[in-house]
């Protein structure tokens, strides 16, 4: 049952992957997507609604949905669940106060059966900020997802720098690597 539908899904999606980026407001979703796409990130407004980016990578076409995380629009997240292959949950590692809210929102999301079969990645963003929680500390906070059989990775090294001088480590490879191995 569950497994069959997952296999079917992988077959259907050999070339095209739908990736949903969600997380609390201010976590950096839009910045990440624009950076990956090599676009200018100097002026980004909080997202009212969503953006869609299609990124070609090798034989894949990544369809990235970046959905706004403000409280008012979180209830619309589920409009985007259908046929999602990969869920990227973006965490602002420096926002210690809202870490619990952040985890609770993810928990809510994972109860959605429409997301079953998708792979999950928790993205510990803003690692460059002094005093930000380390990916391992955030992982501890989310500990029960480690036992979860979704593919969960805490990617420790990606930084989305504010200036263009720093380089970001080939995140496209990372997307493929983590999304390509749905258990």
């Amino acid at each position, binding site marked *: 049952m569950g497994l069959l539908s997952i296999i079917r899904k992988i077959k*259907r999606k050999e070339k095209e992957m739908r990736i949903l980026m969600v997380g609390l407001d201010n976590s950096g979703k839009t910045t990440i997507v624009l950076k990956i796409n090599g676009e200018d990130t100097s002026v980004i407004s*909080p997202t*009212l609604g969503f953006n869609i980016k299609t990124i070609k990578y090798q034989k894949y076409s990544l369809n990235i949905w970046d959905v706004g995380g403000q*409280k*008012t629009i979180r209830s619309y997240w*589920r409009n985007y669940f259908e046929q999602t292959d990969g869920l990227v949950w973006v965490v602002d590692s420096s926002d210690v106060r809202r870490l619990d809210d952040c985890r609770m929102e993810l928990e809510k999301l994972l109860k959605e*059966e429409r997301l079953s079969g998708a792979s999950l990645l928790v993205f510990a963003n803003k690692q460059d*900020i002094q005093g930000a929680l380390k990916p391992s500390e955030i992982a501890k906070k989310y500990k029960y997802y480690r036992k979860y*059989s979704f593919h969960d990775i805490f990617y420790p090294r990606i930084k989305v720098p504010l200036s263009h001088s720093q380089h970001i480590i080939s995140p496209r490879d990372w997307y493929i690597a983590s999304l390509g191995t749905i258990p």
Partner: protein
Amino acid sequence: MKHAAMLERLSNLHRSRLQQYAARRSDSDAASPAFESVRSFLDHFSDSKRSIEAELARCRALASDPASAPNLKPELENVSASIADLDRLVAENSYFLPSYDVRSSLKAISELKEALDSANSELVPRKKFSFKNKASKKDQCILVKQIEEIKVVDAEKSNPVGVRDSPGFRNKENAVLVKCFRVSEEGEGDFSLSDLNSCEVYLKGRIRALFVHRLRNCRIFAGPVQGSILIEDVNDCLFMLASHQIRIHQARATDFYLRVRSRPIIEDSSGVRFAPYRLFYKGIDEDMKDSGLGEETGNWANVDDFKWLRAVQSPNWCLIPEEEHVGTTNASDREEQCDDE
């Protein structure tokens, strides 16, 4: 053109989605049609909306007749399914819709949901149901169960891992608090202001990010923030801030003097007013420039209210009339100061 190619790709994608979607559904007429234009989408949208409203009205009529009461629950479930379809329709067509139409469609949907929720709670008081996709009960993820089980085990020890606080001013009353950031050190870090009552705060120099939480009757003057500012739960305050992004949640009766590169946003706020940034201390010009905030963009006046997604002006915010503006605040002489440090 690159853009045209992308749109084309998306629309192909969309078409193939609709086909898959239609194939998955046994009753093919329930599948969403493809739209060539915004106009035809909006027509279809408003037709569906009207018919959902009519269905809801019919449910209310049903409820007054005891004989048909047993039918009520399935009827309401149908309404719920129709709303979910409409929801999906908007999501699927969103790439070609102007953002205003998307916003207003989403708003209309949320109103339908509210109407349905209240019908549910009034007419079917005992059992509340949610918008679950019941087609795939069998498909239900084993993983969800796993999570629940593990959660039970973890419940007792799920207390927050002792997380440290970031640098900041916290829990102060009637104090003047001053912090000077030197570029070499804290310029890379974040700073928090929380649980302050009747305080005056000066932050000089550059910071990466600023978090503000639970302030009452405070006056805050800050140099440039290179990333974003997040403000939650403030009453009767004055803020003078410069940043790339500013998000304001649950603010009441508070004035904001801002310089922002993007559009400031408010949510769950009322009685908030906006004016341009007027802060001075020695070296601020350079700090502003180094933070990418050297130029006035005029965005301090382009406020988006997430609780008011309409074209007409939100009742929750306004501009501060010029004659009420506080003058330029000079913080040059403020020395570092914090009661218990």
